[in-house]
């Protein structure tokens, strides 16, 4: 196996044509690929010296076979230089800033020096030096004459993509006509009598004879004469002349640029010479980079790059022939342009202004730059992201019988994903059995590997035979079996709990099964969600996954330092029903409740019923799941104080605050004080017990559960009516102009606020009235109280009054002019005209209320839709910015270059999952110390001795503290 090489640095520069030739395996002169026998043509595009792709052939350069030979570059000698499209901007910049005669930079030495300093300075500061470069070019472009040789400079016009012109003002061809017409008297203007040639001669100081010659077109006035004439007659005698710069001209020009000058332009002369931007030799990529594929019918289909190279060679050949035959300049230029076009599209086929080179079918060719660019390009598509082997994806569904550490894997997936098994004497029989089962049978094997490295596919036919051959030192790729560790993931992977390791349980059917308690960390539900699974392929990966990534290791979330896995929904309703009011259970009932847990003996009964049968209480049964030495006191969201003493729930109701995901006290404590394994067992069993409990009691909700008695309805109506009255009062005050505005608000805003306040109160009191009429057994109340699902607000809306509908935090104000709906008068400020829904969901909304409710509801929908896309993008940006930060062993957080970002991780060096979740008493040192002591020492005596030991202080001056005789070790420590 090849050892990986470490890349020290990457430097980008231009390549010398000589280097192209040196590294070239062969010169390519033939545009054909294969001869009639299907053998690659010598010095053709598929020359065997460029590497081999057909199996069995040998590379003529390195001697290796296909697969191990990376391929070798060849080269094409271009008949004429052509411009490299990737550098057109730089070429333009160089043309504009250097002298056309001597090639020197059109800056004085001092200026040049200054810009060079500027470059080094910005580079030292680690800033972007493009601004300095640009200003240097701008400065150099200004020069009309070269400061070194004095030659006049012309402006350069760049016609995209690869044509450059020198623009100069020359005397127009019709100069005599222009002068003559300027000398004619203006017909409209009577004062203008025109100008006689003699006057012109006087004014310009040109001899009259010369002037006449000029007028007759015999003499061309150039230089000063021209300027004088232009001034005297106020005409423009010039026209722009565009002189095309051929690539060879540019190359000659660039060759003259001295090394010192290009430094100022930001080019390192050691790595790049400007003339190398004009190609004279074209490297031919190795065959391995443009493999041809053999179609089913035996025809070969070549890669796009090969097609393009064929074009280039053909034109190159024609160019040379034509030139040798002495073809006219026009034809040569056309061919040159054609060659330029082909080389350009070979490099980049998406240049604006150039028609893309197309395949015969009309599809644009995918050439070099298209291979690299964009989402599907080499960088984003092949290097940063790839397709993954040993991964599976399917729909998820719940299975409460699984442990939270497990995942149900469909057999079909298990048969596809394999684990490598090294055969030894001890597992030989198992390995043989796997192979014998073949690829179709479950636990089977798909491949075996012989010690000589040969891989054999296990098929239904050869499996028996192969199984007998398996010996120690073979490798068997066996199917996934129960207990294997796999990685399980749901996108979007927003936190680390989105990717966790699970143990496999192979199951029938086609979905991944998972315990419902792991839904919160994955944010999964079963409405069609799909998840990915990855089978791990190395022992290290499996070990790491098992130790660090298993679900039970992720019970505590680093996001808020408390458990993210715990009981949810019906589990919470279940424990609530079980422990609230501490109901009694007979022996059968108690055993039934506990039967899904690992508890197989009942505790002593709590007492006896009147008829003498023993009974157990709900709290007692719940306590069976707790460790025997757990002591915990907290107040639950239900409102009572929960007391757990020595593993017995003495008092209180178990609800969301006790066992729920997102910070259930009991789960949290178990995970922190006991072990992850203990808390995993607890969560599993609570879930099972709770499901039994909720089934025991029965739990359902219907529309009648939200009904309140008629008198309650009247009370609600009354409450709302009185709110209406208060609103009306407010409106009257406002209309009388007596409403006092709140600080920082206008009167209108104040009114709105006050109305909203009143209406909010109305809904609340409606809620209270409704609440008073609900019994504690009401399932909706149970769910809301226990925190299983829903809130009292939901209940209020169902039974009491839906309340004010709002859009962007305000009452509904938009709509028709001056009113919301056409059902109301204009400028009606009343509650109902602005979206107050006085009915309850149970009672039914009026059409208008329904519409207002839809308006408020729409806002919510839009909000979620917009937020998800926004948060996804924000997440992506955050990850990109933070991905390379790493906490080092010294506690600092550094980026890849070693720059310290934080001196201590999180500025405090603590892991959120290791600190107490209770903010008021922080870390309970006392308690922890006691626990450590208990574990460390068996007898109280030893403990006493340890605690009583007094280490003498070590950092005291010998003159302070106890006398020398008592401080034995002061000398040794004195260097503090």
């Amino acid at each position, binding site marked *: 196996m090849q050892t990986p090489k470490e890349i020290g640095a990457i430097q980008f520069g231009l390549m010398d044509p000589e280097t192209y030739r040196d590294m070239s395996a062969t010169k390519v002169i033939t545009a054909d690929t294969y001869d009639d026998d299907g053998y690659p043509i010598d010095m053709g595009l598929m020359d065997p010296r460029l590497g081999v792709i057909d199996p069995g052939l040998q590379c003529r350069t390195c001697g290796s076979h296909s697969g191990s030979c990376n391929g070798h570059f060849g080269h094409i000698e271009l008949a004429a230089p052509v411009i490299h499209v990737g550098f057109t901007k730089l070429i333009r910049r160089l043309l504009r800033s250097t002298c056309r005669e001597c090639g020197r930079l059109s800056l004085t030495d001092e200026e040049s020096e200054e810009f060079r300093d500027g470059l080094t300075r910005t580079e030292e500061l680690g800033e972007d030096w493009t601004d300095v470069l640009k200003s240097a070019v701008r400065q150099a472009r200004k020069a009309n004459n070269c400061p070194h040789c004095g030659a006049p400079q012309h402006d350069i016009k760049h016609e995209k993509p690869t044509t450059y012109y020198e623009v100069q003002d020359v005397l127009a061809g019709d100069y005599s006509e222009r002068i003559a017409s300027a000398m004619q008297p203006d017909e409209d203007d009577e004062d203008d009598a025109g100008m006689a040639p003699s006057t012109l001669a006087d004014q310009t100081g040109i001899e009259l004879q010369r002037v006449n010659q000029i007028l007759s077109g015999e003499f061309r006035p150039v230089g000063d004469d021209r300027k004088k004439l232009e001034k005297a007659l106020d005409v423009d005698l010039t026209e722009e002349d565009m002189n095309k710069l051929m690539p060879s001209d540019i190359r000659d020009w660039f060759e003259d640029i001295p090394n010192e000058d290009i430094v100022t332009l930001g080019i390192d002369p050691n790595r790049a010479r400007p003339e190398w931007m004009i190609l004279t030799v074209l490297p031919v990529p190795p065959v391995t980079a443009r493999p041809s594929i053999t179609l089913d019918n035996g025809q070969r289909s070549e890669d796009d790059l090969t097609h393009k190279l064929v074009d280039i060679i053909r034109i190159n050949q024609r160019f040379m022939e034509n030139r040798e035959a002495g073809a006219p300049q026009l034809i040569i230029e056309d061919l040159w342009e054609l060659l330029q076009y082909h080389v350009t599209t070979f490099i980049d086929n998406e240049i604006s202004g150039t028609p893309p080179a197309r395949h015969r079918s009309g599809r644009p060719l995918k050439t070099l730059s298209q291979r690299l660019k964009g989402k599907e390009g080499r960088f984003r598509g092949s290097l940063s992201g790839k397709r993954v082997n040993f991964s599976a994806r399917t729909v998820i569904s719940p299975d409460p019988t699984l442990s939270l550490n497990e995942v149900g894997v469909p057999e079909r997936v298990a048969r596809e994903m394999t684990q490598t098994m090294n055969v030894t004497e001890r597992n030989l029989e198992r390995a043989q059995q796997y192979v014998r089962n073949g690829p179709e049978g479950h636990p089977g094997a798909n491949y075996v590997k012989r010690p000589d490295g040969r891989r054999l596919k296990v098929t239904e036919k050869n499996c028996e035979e192969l199984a007998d051959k398996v010996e120690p030192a073979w490798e068997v790729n066996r199917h996934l079996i129960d207990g294997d560790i796999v990685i399980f993931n749901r996108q979007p992977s927003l936190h680390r709990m989105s990717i966790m390791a699970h143990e496999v349980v192979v199951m029938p059917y086609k979905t991944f099964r998972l315990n419902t308690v792991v839904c919160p960390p994955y944010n999964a539900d079963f409405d069609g969600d799909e998840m990915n699974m990855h089978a791990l392929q190395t022992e290290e990966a499996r070990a790491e996954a098992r130790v660090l990534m298993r679900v039970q290791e992720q019970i505590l979330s680093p996001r808020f330092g408390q458990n993210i896995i715990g009981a949810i929904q019906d589990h919470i309703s279940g424990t609530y029903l079980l422990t609230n009011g501490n109901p009694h259970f007979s022996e059968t009932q108690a055993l039934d409740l506990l039967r899904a847990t690992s508890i197989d003996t009942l505790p002593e009964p709590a007492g006896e019923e009147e008829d003498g049968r023993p009974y157990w209480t709900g709290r007692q049964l719940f306590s069976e799941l707790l460790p025997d030495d757990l002591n915990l006191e907290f107040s639950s969201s239900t409102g009572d104080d929960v007391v757990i003493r020595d593993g017995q729930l003495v008092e209180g109701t178990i609800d969301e605050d006790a066992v729920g995901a997102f910070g259930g006290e009991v789960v949290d404590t178990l995970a922190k004080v006991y072990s992850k394994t203990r808390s995993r067992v607890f969560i599993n069993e609570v879930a099972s017990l709770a499901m039994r409990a909720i089934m025991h009691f029965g739990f359902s909700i219907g529309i009648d559960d939200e009904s309140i008695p008629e008198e309650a309805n009247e009370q609600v109506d009354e409450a709302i009516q009185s709110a209406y009255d208060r609103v009306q009062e407010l409106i009257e005050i406002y209309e009388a102009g007596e409403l006092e505005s709140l600080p920082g608000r206008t009167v209108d805003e104040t009114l709105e606020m006050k109305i909203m306040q009143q209406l909010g109160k109305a809904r609340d009191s409606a809620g209270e009235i409704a609440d008073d009429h609900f019994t504690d057994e009401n399932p909706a109340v149970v769910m809301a109280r226990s925190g299983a699902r829903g809130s009292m607000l939901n209940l209020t809306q169902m039974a009491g009054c839906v309340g004010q509908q709002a859009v962007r935090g305000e009452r509904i104000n938009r709509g028709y002019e001056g009113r919301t709906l*056409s059902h109301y008068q204009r400028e009606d400020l009343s509650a109902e005209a602005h979206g107050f829904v006085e009915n309850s969901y149970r009672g039914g909304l009026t059409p208008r209320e329904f519409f207002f409710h839809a308006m408020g509801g729409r806002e919510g*929908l839009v909000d979620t*839709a917009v937020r998800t896309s926004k948060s996804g993008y924000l997440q992506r940006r955050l990850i990109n910015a933070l991905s390379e930060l790493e906490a080092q062993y010294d506690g600092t957080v550094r980026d890849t270059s070693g720059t310290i970002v934080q001196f201590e991780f999180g500025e405090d060096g603590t892991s959120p999952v290791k600190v107490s979740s209770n903010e008021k008493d922080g870390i309970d040192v006392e308690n922890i110390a006691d626990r450590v002591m208990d574990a460390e020492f068996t007898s109280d005596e030893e403990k006493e001795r340890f605690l009583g030991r007094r280490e003498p202080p070590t950092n005291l001056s010998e003159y302070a503290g106890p006398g020398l005789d008592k401080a034995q070790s002061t000398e040794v420590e004195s260097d503090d």
Partner: protein
Amino acid sequence: MNRQDRRAVSRQYFSQERLAEHHFRSFNNFLERGMQEVVSEKATIETDIGDKEGEEPVYVELGDIRVETPRVREADGSEELLFPQEARLRNITYAAPVFMEMSIIRGGEEEEEVVVDTTETKVGRMPIMVGSTKCNIHNLSDEELVEIGEDPVDPGGYFIVNGSERVLMTSEDLAPNKILAEYDTKYGDEIQVAKTFSQRRGYRALVLCERNREGILEVSFPSVSGSVEFVTLVRALGLESDEEIVHRVSDDPEIVKFMLENLEEAEVQTEAEAIETLGKRVAGGQGKNYQLKRANYVIDRYLLPHLHEDGVEEEEVRINKAFYLCRMAEACFELALQRRDSDDKDHYANKRLKVSGDLMKDLFRTALNKLARDVKYQLERANMRNRQLTVNTVVRSDVLTERLEHPIATGNWVGGRSGVSQLVDRTDYMGVLSHLRRLRSPLSRSQPHFEARDLHATQWGRICPSETPEGPNCGLVKNFAQAMELSQNIEDEQALKRELASMGVEGIPGIEGPDPTNTPADD
């Protein structure tokens, strides 16, 4: 209304004919009048024949257009009526042949104009909406439909192209030819803008009238880069005197004050000067005559094109354009003075729906232009080779057919809009019904556009408050309410204007008011 009555009304609205009613009305209207309108707009196809010396010019006159009902041409050349189910099963297009009268006319230069050839020829095939008047199953009874293998409860309202059923999505655009006043910010300052999307015959021009932070009004419209001073522009349009400009904007003293500021800043005083200044803007650096020509052209062509009308002199329209601009100015000032609120773009009064017929009209217009270009080319080629010029040889019917079918098949409409036609959702019957009554806002779904996505109170009774997709299209894709009625454009604008004129409205170009001479200019 009691429950029974409501139920009866509801049934009526949910009846067979009502479900895709808006599609039928729109498409039938297109077939009956829209197509002919487009042809009449085009009227002639000019050619380059006659540019050379001694050659007589040739042009083509377009006459009446006629659409048959869908039929299919078999390999043996026979032509048969085509029914939708057959089109679906055979993966062919449910389209009807279109015939047009065309006359090739030569002469006019030296010789007299001679009609060389005049024929009604097949110019192409028009995809026909299932259930429209030109559809072969139109007005068939349920029994007859069953007899020929059609589904009697199918709502229709879609096209069949290459066997796939495509609905044209109704699109919801901002109302054209309406002044909308809004606040905007420019360089950090709040400014007032009055906007009008002026639309005529498929040409859409946005005219903006801005009141910048100095209080100067500026107008921008297509083909002029940047903006032109309001006063300059109205003077160029022939509203010359200070008094009249102010009066036409408003008589409100505060607005008059604002207007005086503008007049003081004005660069020009006369119409001629104004046109000259405009000329410099639109054709800077060119010859003076050209500048003037260009300025006049730009004013008549690109500024508020919706005020033009057939048979009305351009000069007459100009002053109306000036008046219109004055109204825009007034809107800006009123906004600045907080006399009015900014217009609500999401108000349904400011929305117009483009239904299948309108979309097909756009398509047919470009297709006809393409055909015209092809006819021109064919004519010139035939002329070069000295062939006899006949209508039948120069019209290639594939050109129009291709231009009509391809956009419907792919959804890539003219003007770069995509997704205009969609495959009918046949998940279930309800899916079809919902799909036929769906409408789409052209706003980009990637931007938040919170306000546009809101359920607006004016959608009451028109748009379903509940049915909108979740996700990126939320609130942008909507569905009609059950009892929605879609009103259509008036058929005869001239009649409307005459009616208005008889009621005392003045200044409608091309229409004589009751007594225009006696009434004074104001009020």
